[in-house]
């Protein structure tokens, strides 16, 4: 028996006792209502139950690497983190050891290499120096080559180690304080030999079977290897700069086959290593007379960067007196290397304020004028900028960093416009690497 009650009554066409035909229609309608209710209930049940997932999953890096990825070292946490400069996502990290965590990035193998020094008891015990091999997709250690325990521990990122241009060999600079380089065969994963380099320090790539070093008298030492990685020739050039009157900094930038060194007084020295003999160009001034009168100087921990395709040189500068070659930069000056002219001056924003790796940002959602006031306050914090690097793609980004912050300043490298801050999670940023040629990414750039 059916009774017309409550809210269900609107489904009924008429009142009273239903006729047999009407009862049939009513049965159909109630079936429809039941279906709708079941559908709603089913839909709700579907939203509540997630698919059962697997534990133990570990991400791997997508390939090929984006040219807008950056490795950023942290001397406090002894690591280097990989971040995406587009969105700030942290993609992974590599542990370091004593000193800075600086990796080598081969173009031809999906591997990464990092020279590391460890003690068996943390701060004491047996010292082990090794070149650690990592899978560049999984970031897992896949091999190692034990080195002589002589590796130089440096507080800057240039010249500590280098890859041959064909990725076959690695050279690691040693300082005891006798100077030498350790040669590693990366294909065979074996230590080849230690090459004594008296009076010459640091190491830079200089061809498939050659490394370059800077000597204390202003000369260049070229160390040539055979196919097995053994030294066959050590050639010292005549001095190409005066290390007493105006030394060049170690923080060189490579433009094709040419290494560029800037001197304390702002002159750019070029060393062309495309031939058997190095060719040294006449140095040219990065500073005009007016710049010098205003006390502009080059300086920083990594103060030069080159965009290969456009031939643009980026130079970190500050205003200061003599011997301020390591002072942080306040501006970035852009040059065209072909015409030796300055194209632009970029006033730098600070790289962002952090505390214990956490970004300090506030006020963006406050009402006017407090949002503007908060922005001005954060931007006016004078955080030194020690490093600059540039990506090597067609839409290049400039990246600035400083040891007093875990943030990065990101700029459009073609017009100098400040784009955003990226936060690395580092307590201090030291060791900014943009490995453009890394395992399939766009070719060119510094390694």
């Amino acid at each position, binding site marked *: 028996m059916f009774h017309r009650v409550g809210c269900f009554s609107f489904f009924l066409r008429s009142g009273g006792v239903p006729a047999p035909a009407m009862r049939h229609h009513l049965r159909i309608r109630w079936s429809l209502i039941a279906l709708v209710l079941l559908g709603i209930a089913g839909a709700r049940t579907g939203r509540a139950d997630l698919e059962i997932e697997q534990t133990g999953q570990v991400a791997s890096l997508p390939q090929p690497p984006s040219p807008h990825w950056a490795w950023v070292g942290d001397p406090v946490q002894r690591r280097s983190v990989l971040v995406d400069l587009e969105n700030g996502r942290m993609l992974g990290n590599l542990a370091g050891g*004593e*000193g800075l965590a600086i990796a080598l990035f081969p173009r031809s193998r999906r591997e990464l290499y990092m020279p590391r*020094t460890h*003690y068996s008891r943390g*701060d*004491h015990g047996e*010292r082990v120096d090794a070149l650690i091999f990592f899978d560049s997709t999984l970031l897992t250690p896949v091999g190692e080559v034990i080195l002589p325990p002589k590796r*130089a*521990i*440096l*507080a*800057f990122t240039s*010249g500590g180690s280098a890859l041959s241009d064909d990725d076959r060999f690695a050279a690691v600079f040693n*300082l*005891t*304080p006798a*100077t030498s380089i350790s040669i590693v065969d990366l294909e065979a994963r074996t230590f080849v030999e230690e090459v004594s380099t*008296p*009076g*010459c*320090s*640091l190491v830079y790539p200089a061809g498939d079977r050659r490394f370059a*070093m*800077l*000597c*204390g*008298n*202003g*000369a260049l030492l070229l160390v040539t290897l055979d196919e097995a990685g053994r030294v066959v020739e*050590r050639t*010292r050039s005549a*001095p190409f700069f005066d*290390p*007493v009157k105006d*030394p*060049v*900094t*170690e923080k060189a930038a490579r433009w094709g086959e040419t290494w560029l060194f800037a001197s304390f007084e702002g002159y750019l020295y070029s060393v062309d290593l495309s031939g058997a003999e190095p060719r040294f160009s006449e140095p040219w001034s990065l500073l005009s007379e007016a710049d010098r009168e205003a006390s502009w100087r080059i300086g920083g921990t990594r103060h030069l960067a080159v965009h290969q395709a456009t031939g643009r040189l980026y130079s970190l500068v500050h205003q200061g007196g003599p*011997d*301020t*070659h*390591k*002072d942080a930069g306040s501006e970035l000056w852009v040059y065209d290397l072909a015409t030796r002219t300055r194209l632009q001056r970029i006033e730098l924003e600070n790289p962002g304020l952090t505390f214990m790796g956490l970004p300090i940002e506030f006020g963006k959602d406050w009402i006017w004028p407090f949002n503007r006031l908060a922005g001005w306050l954060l931007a006016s914090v004078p955080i030194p900028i020690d490093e600059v690097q540039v990506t090597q793609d067609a839409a290049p980004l400039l990246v600035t960093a400083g040891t007093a912050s875990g943030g990065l300043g990101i700029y459009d490298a073609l017009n100098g416009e400040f784009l955003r801050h990226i936060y690395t999670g580092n307590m201090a940023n030291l060791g900014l690497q943009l490995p453009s040629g890394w395992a399939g990414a766009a070719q060119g750039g510094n390694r």
Partner: protein
Amino acid sequence: MSWMGRSLGILCALVLAGVTVLLLPVVRAEPPAVQAGEPDPSTPEGDPGAAEYWRYCAIDGYLADCCGGTHTTCPPGTEMSTVTWLGTCTNPADGKDYVISYNDCCGKPPGGRCFVRRTEGERPAYVTHKNNDINWCMGTSSIAYNSTVAVVVGVAASEQSDVSDPGTGEE
């Protein structure tokens, strides 16, 4: 007790209290003694705990003076490096230039206090003996860097003679 006697009693009590206070073992601030040949330690150029201390003209690191040692002694448990970099700093007390040996204190974690980086006369790492970006914990049982001292090791000769040519070694 008469008025006179009460007054004398109060006076004696005050004198006694004053003497007692003077005899209490309180810390009295005294200016640090001026060391012979050193600037006044109450000035930054004479204070080994200050970045402006004259010997620190080419230092780069944590001051041992702030980390358990002094400007000439390393903190307990560390080991002083025997290989160092050198600076040439002017002593404002006598106007002379002195050769300063910056010995690293090694074998412990970083001191973490009073980080000072000055680069007067500092040179790139290929002029190794004048570079302060190298971890100079060499010849020690551990290269772990803790802090740095600044030891006078001689009166400076002329700049030309000081800049030896380390790049003319044998080939």
